[in-house]
């Protein structure tokens, strides 16, 4: 069962930049309703895509995670960035439906 990985500055390089598989990183915050809306969609996507992709989250409300929010210029959430071989290759902002997000991810990875 694919788990969603909680990211911090301490594990970002290991889990995302040096990951052997692509990673979708969801920048979110507890105060953000649309982010809560994305949570079950991302959980379903993690199950659906299995080993093809890793899904991870950064809570930008956590002061410890501010460097990540600044580095990736987060100004709107939910903001889901797709990384492949350590490079950001796409960014999806706002609530997305599962089917269209899955398709867009697979298109970017193909």
């Amino acid at each position, binding site marked *: 069962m694919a788990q969603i990985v909680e990211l911090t500055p301490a594990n970002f390089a290991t889990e995302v930049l040096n990951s052997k598989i692509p990673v979708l990183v969801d920048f979110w915050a507890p105060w953000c309703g649309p982010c*809560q809306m994305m949570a079950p969609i991302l959980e379903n996507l993690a199950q659906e895509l299995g080993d093809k992709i890793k899904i991870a989250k950064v809570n930008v409300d956590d002061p410890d995670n501010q460097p990540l929010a600044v580095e990736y210029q987060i*100004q709107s*959430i939910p903001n889901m960035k797709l990384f492949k071989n350590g490079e950001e290759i796409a960014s999806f902002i706002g609530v997305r439906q599962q089917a269209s997000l899955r398709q867009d991810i697979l298109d970017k990875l193909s």
Partner: protein
Amino acid sequence: MEMGVKDLIIVGAGPAGLTASIYASRYKIEHQVIGLLPGGAMTEAYKICNFPSEVSISGWELAQKIENNARQLGGEIVAGEVLKISGHYPNFQVDLADGHKLASKTILLASGAKRRHLGLPNEDKFLGKGLAYCATCDGPFFKDKIVGVVGGGNCAATAVIFLSTIAAQVLWFYLGSEPNAVEPGWLEEINKQGNIKLMARSEIKALLGDNHLSGVTIKRENKTENINLEGLFVEIGSDPNSSLLKQLGGTVNEGGYIVVDGGQATTIPGIWAAGDVTTSSNGLRQIITACSEGAIAADSIFKFLQRQV
């Protein structure tokens, strides 16, 4: 997810849908709520001061309270999006975006409304790069910056107040000489803040910037001027999510709002509607009127189902 025939499927999990679920549970109507987000649009409200039980509460907190009540009474609330409704009473089929198909005798549409965009050509380019549609979500990223809010209603007013606690300055752009039908309570709060500048009779004509929003062009009293800012929040109202009823041939008014009778029934037998998507409550689209319409709809559905047995 249950595949049996429900008595009722409630489309939408905002205050109308959740209140209908509370009443349906107490009436022992077998039902399910399908919605993108428990609480719906109210989750984005910075502060709610006109709900009778609360002096001041965030939209997210009030949404959680209502959701908890609905769940405690047995309401089954499922995250999902309804794409299509087909059939007729007592055999409606509800198709979800994840491929599931549900069956129900009756339907309550509490599908709310979706935010309007400015309609400017480069709007998509600046999304997440200075342009935002949810002040409570994205406001905290604009600490000590100059931001603008577009729109002259209550939602814009509360966004202005919220942002004034974070940003260095908030420019409030609206079309009229005064904000449109804003509660005097909000205006009083705005007048107390020293960092809010009212920009009356201002229309946003263009978004400026290369990779990030750096300003806007406005038309004000027949003059065009460029104004520097780093963030712009769009609060120009919403349009009803009434397409599910329109697909079935149900009646909506010129604004797209679902026409309902005093019992919240639509023109399609077996389908009711409640909340921001309807013509009800004299057009006063508030959390409390959505709750009221949800309660009335559930009562009507209960009586309707009783008559059928």
